[in-house]
């Protein structure tokens, strides 16, 4: 029979709209307006999951974001979502849900035997148990733990849904649409302020959805409906239901997650986004986030059927569900008496109200007495019975100090325990940006103290739980927020609805119900039921020396779960205070951090999905040609650069050998467009370059170019490149491909902050020029066929000069520079002509055997010449002297970084210096880049640590030389020529190598100066 636990009437469900769903394969029915949790309870299903560590049976516990237990896997295939809280999952037709963390089924879970060994699994057992042997870490421990632990399963296919992001500004953002939030929105909205009101629930009303309080003589929800209707009519008010404010950052920035179509089915209908992240910048923020009831902590308090009292009331009043047949209400305050009345009024037998307070006197207590509900004043539930569901409780008398129980044990049969230990204001969002909190003894919890920025707390989240007070505080916060943006004064203009007076008696703080046996031997008292974390764990942590609540949390894993300890953490702090013998006000809470509830990755990604949209990709004008000619690419910064061009059937080594042979013996062409280019102009351009490069630049004439290195102010090499003088007041600067943005920023910073008197203008021109680099003995022949207007002879156009010209009829700059050691030219043309001129060069080069080469061959050719690549051979900790670049350091002027070169550390004689290496045993063996170099031949057997003498920065096979070559940084390397070093490898091999000059090929530079 379907929905046996559904009440005959009542609730905010639509009984005319039945919905069919499945849970663990069983077909069930619920109604529109149900959550998965309420629908399961309506069908008499309360066992939904197994706990994380001990695999104990766990039921639906809460009724909202706070529920630590009701994790389910919803759907299957690409759209499946792991670890949804059933309490926040709206029911839809065809919903498929399954339990997580149990095998083979939630009722019979093999791993439940871990519960028998639980004495062996105390807090910190991971740290203590799985330490040795080390070889078991990744082979035994990790796979086993991963199999046994963890909850749902992530989908393996791409998410089929779309997610959106939206940026919005508003005057007043109000989080929470309960009585306080609605009142604030009315007050601010009526004045014309631009208001956003959001609430995580599917409908507005907050606590009024789930209780039976009256406003203006009508059910509270009627007042809420009227308020919502008025807000809907206000043009500047935006209402967002199903929207969680999950992060509150500085200066009024709040992140919201709107679940647009989650409630409609597994995948979004009609192309709508599944979820939308709102990034709101609010001038004023009103927090009306309510409070969460904390349960009482007693032995075996985790059995299915044990719930916070307010959750019981919510299931009855909001969902029309009968959560049990016979209940015990266990409380330390008045609010749970309302739950007893809710149960009683709906024909559910209340076996007893067990109240830890010997005396209590209030309207609600009187009503319970009138209904003749048995009240055990000054008693406590000390233990429970049951298998997969609670079947009874043990009740004993509590002593006056509240730290012991005595007397006869009363056994009460029940299938439902509704417990209340008081209420915790939801101060998460208040705390995210650094708002402080203080302990309020009257409610035995933490309330907001100093808010950050224009943030106001109103209602239950501010520690004010009475309905009338919530509304007044909401109106006041709305008025203050509106006044803060110039809409009226801080005086309340709206009128508060009338509420009944509620006399209350004070609560009796109780973090942990005393157990009959001392803590380690007593049955488990769960604080965090998702992580199986108990009061014994907190006591153990304190005994082992932990004092800070932050450390106790991390040692015990309290509040580590997907619920982030919303039910348990304040109890945990109270129990830690008890164990430490300190005041809870001093112990405090752990830090509240975003996100309030878990946020789907998709909501952060939005539409920026996939390699094309996730990050900018930069391609040169000739990119398609490279693709068409079989290039493989490598990423350099954001650029795609041709890596090498293998011919069909060719290995990488064969391709590189061919490319470098052709370049050394005929002519090679390289796309150099990615090099950073900065146009430097102004009357002080020469002076500026003189200050940012280490060498002298003022005397370089127009028409010439020069290699320069730039240092950071700490004296370390930052970047290098060739710059050319275009005119007296105009330079064309080049940087490394990956360093372009950094260099531009560096230059701008010095111009604006240190030398604002210099008249210099910088423009990034990297994308405006296409650069075609030709190298090899036939480079001049090819250039001659393409370029006109320049005398290319060595005498007229020597190395390190440039000329204006035309290339294939297009205006061009021709540079005579070389990064390969060969005769070299670089043709620069306006980027849109890049492919056109490249085609002309390619055509002209055919008769000379022109070959395109990529970055790998470029690296080999430059390494044969000992040319460095900033960022590969340098790492921010090496200075120019380490590279023997003394000749580039001007003594006649100051430049950035110069002073640092005379610091004692820069002058140290045992610094690592740039050298070459060749391998000895097998001359063709390539030492891995990054390999360490030692003097000890048998480093693997030698006592550790083995003194380090250097490391390899670049390493290649040189077909030109017929052996491998490496560049390395070696201590005092330049005075150790021909010394032998050893490079021990991870696989046990040791590579023997000899120190050489870093210039392996054509040391006199005769090939490039022809």
């Amino acid at each position: 029979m379907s929905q046996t636990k559904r009440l005959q009437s009542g609730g905010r469900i639509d009984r005319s709209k039945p919905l069919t769903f499945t849970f663990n394969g069983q077909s069930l029915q619920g109604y529109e307006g149900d959550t998965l949790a309420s629908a399961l309870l309506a069908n008499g299903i309360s066992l939904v999951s197994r706990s994380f560590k001990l695999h104990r049976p766990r039921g639906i516990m809460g009724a909202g974001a706070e529920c630590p237990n009701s994790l389910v896997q919803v759907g299957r295939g690409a759209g499946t979502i792991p670890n949804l809280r059933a309490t926040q999952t709206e029911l839809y037709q065809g919903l498929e849900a399954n339990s997580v963390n149990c095998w083979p089924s939630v009722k019979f879970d093999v791993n439940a035997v871990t519960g028998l060994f639980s004495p062996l699994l105390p807090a910190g057992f991971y740290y203590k148990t799985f330490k040795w042997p080390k070889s078991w870490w990744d082979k035994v421990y990790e796979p086993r733990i991963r199999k046994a632990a963890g909850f749902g399963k992530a989908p393996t296919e791409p998410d089929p849904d779309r997610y959106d992001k939206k940026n919005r500004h508003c005057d007043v953002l109000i989080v929470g649409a309960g009585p306080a939030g609605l009142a604030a929105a009315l007050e601010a909205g009526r004045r014309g302020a631009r208001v956003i009101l959001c609430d995580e629930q599917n409908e507005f009303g907050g606590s009024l959805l789930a209780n039976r309080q009256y406003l203006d003589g009508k059910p509270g929800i009627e007042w809420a409906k009227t308020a919502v209707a008025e807000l809907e009519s206000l043009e500047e008010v935006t209402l967002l239901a199903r929207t969680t404010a999950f992060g509150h950052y500085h200066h009024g920035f709040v992140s919201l997650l709107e679940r647009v179509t989650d409630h409609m089915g597994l995948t979004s209908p009609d192309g709508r986004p599944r979820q939308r992240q709102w990034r709101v910048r609010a001038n004023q923020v009103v927090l009306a986030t309510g409070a969460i009831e904390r349960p009482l902590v007693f032995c075996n308090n985790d059995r299915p059927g044990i719930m916070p009292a307010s959750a019981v009331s919510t299931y009855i009043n909001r969902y029309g569900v009968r959560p049990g047949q016979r209940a015990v209400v266990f409380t330390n305050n008045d609010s749970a008496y309302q739950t007893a009345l809710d149960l009683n009024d709906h024909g559910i037998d209340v076996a007893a109200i067990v109240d830890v307070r010997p005396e209590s006197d209030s309207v609600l207590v009187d009503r319970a007495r009138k209904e003749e509900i048995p009240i055990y004043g000054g008693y406590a539930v000390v233990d429970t019975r049951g298998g997969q569901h609670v079947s009874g409780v043990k009740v004993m008398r509590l002593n006056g100090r509240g730290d012991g129980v005595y007397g006869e044990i009363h056994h009460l049969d029940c299938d439902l325990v509704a417990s209340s230990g008081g209420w915790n204001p939801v101060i998460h969002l208040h705390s995210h940006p650094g708002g402080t909190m203080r302990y309020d003894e009257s409610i035995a919890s933490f309330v907001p103290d100093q808010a950050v920025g224009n943030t106001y707390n109103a209602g239950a989240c501010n520690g004010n739980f009475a309905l009338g007070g919530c509304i007044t505080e909401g109106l006041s916060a709305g008025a203050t927020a509106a006044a803060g943006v110039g809409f009226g004064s801080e005086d309340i203009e709206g009128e508060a609805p009338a509420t009944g007076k509620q006399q209350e008696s004070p609560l009796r703080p109780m973090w942990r119900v005393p157990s009959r046996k001392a803590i380690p031997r007593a049955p488990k008292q769960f604080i965090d039921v998702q992580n199986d974390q108990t009061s014994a764990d907190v006591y153990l942590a304190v005994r082992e020396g932990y004092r800070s609540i932050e450390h106790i949390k991390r040692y015990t894993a309290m509040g580590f779960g997907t619920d982030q300890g919303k039910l348990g953490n304040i109890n945990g702090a109270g129990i830690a205070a008890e164990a430490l013998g300190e005041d809870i006000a001093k112990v405090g809470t752990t830090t509240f951090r975003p996100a309030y509830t878990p946020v789907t990755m998709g909501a952060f990604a939005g539409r920026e999905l996939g390699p094309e949209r996730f990050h900018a990709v930069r391609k040169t004008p000739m990119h398609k040609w490279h693709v068409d000619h079989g290039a493989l690419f490598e990423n350099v910064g954001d650029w795609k650069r041709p890596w090498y061009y293998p011919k069909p059937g060719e290995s990488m080594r064969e391709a590189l050998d061919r490319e470098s042979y052709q370049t050394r013996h005929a002519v090679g062409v390289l796309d150099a467009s990615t090099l950073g280019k900065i146009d430097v102009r102004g009357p002080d351009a020469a002076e500026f370059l003189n200050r940012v490069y280490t060498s002298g630049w003022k005397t370089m004439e127009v028409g010439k170019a020069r290699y320069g290195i730039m240092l950071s102010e700490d004296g370390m090499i930052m970047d290098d490149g060739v710059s050319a003088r275009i005119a007296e007041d105009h330079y064309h600067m080049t940087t490394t491909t990956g360093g372009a943005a950094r260099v531009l920023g560096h230059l701008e910073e010095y111009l604006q902050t240190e030398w604002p008197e210099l008249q210099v203008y910088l423009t990034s021109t990297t994308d405006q020029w296409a650069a075609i680099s030709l190298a090899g003995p036939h480079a001049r022949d090819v250039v001659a066929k393409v370029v006109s207007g320049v005398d290319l002879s060595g005498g007229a156009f020597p190395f390190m000069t440039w000329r204006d010209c035309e290339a294939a009829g297009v205006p061009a700059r021709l540079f005579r520079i070389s990064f390969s050691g060969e005769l070299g030219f670089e043709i620069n043309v306006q980027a849109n002509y890049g492919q056109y001129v490249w085609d002309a060069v390619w055509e002209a080069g055919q008769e000379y055997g022109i070959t395109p080469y990529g970055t790998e061959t470029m690296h080999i050719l430059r390494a044969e010449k000992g040319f460095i690549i900033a960022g590969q051979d340098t790492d921010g900790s090496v200075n120019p002297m380490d590279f023997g670049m003394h000749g580039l350091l001007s003594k006649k002027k100051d430049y950035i970084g110069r002073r640092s070169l005379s610091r004692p550390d820069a002058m140290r004689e045992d610094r690592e210096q740039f050298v070459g290496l060749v391998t000895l045993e097998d001359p063709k063996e390539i030492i891995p880049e990054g390999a360490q170099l030692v003097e000890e031949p048998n480093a693997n057997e030698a006592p550790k640590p083995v003194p380090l003498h250097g490391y390899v920065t670049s390493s290649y096979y040189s077909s030109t030389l017929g052996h491998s070559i490496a560049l390395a940084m070696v201590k005092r390397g330049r005075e150790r020529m021909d010394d032998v070093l050893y490079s021990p490898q991870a696989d046990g091999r040791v590579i023997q190598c000899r120190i050489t000059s870093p210039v392996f090929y054509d040391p006199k530079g005769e090939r490039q100066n022809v």
Partner: protein
Amino acid sequence: MLHIKCPWCGWRDESEFGYGGEAHIERPKDPDSVSDAEWADYLFFGSNRRGDFRERWVHSAGCRRWFNAVRDTTTYEFKAFYRMGEEPPGGEQ
């Protein structure tokens, strides 16, 4: 996500800006005249103040101009924004 007022462009999100550390640390005019210790102090040591702190920002995804700000390092509240070369509000720190 801080909200920052570029003196040229107005209020913008933090993601448009780069941070430049403590402001008003001037590069020694004649680096040779300072001792190694003074140079190291210039290079490596900031005041790391608690409370109002003068710091540099650059509107790197906007006008690319550097400017100064006064920010309370405990609350992240900005007290002032001012251009390079302008006197900091509030006098000596």
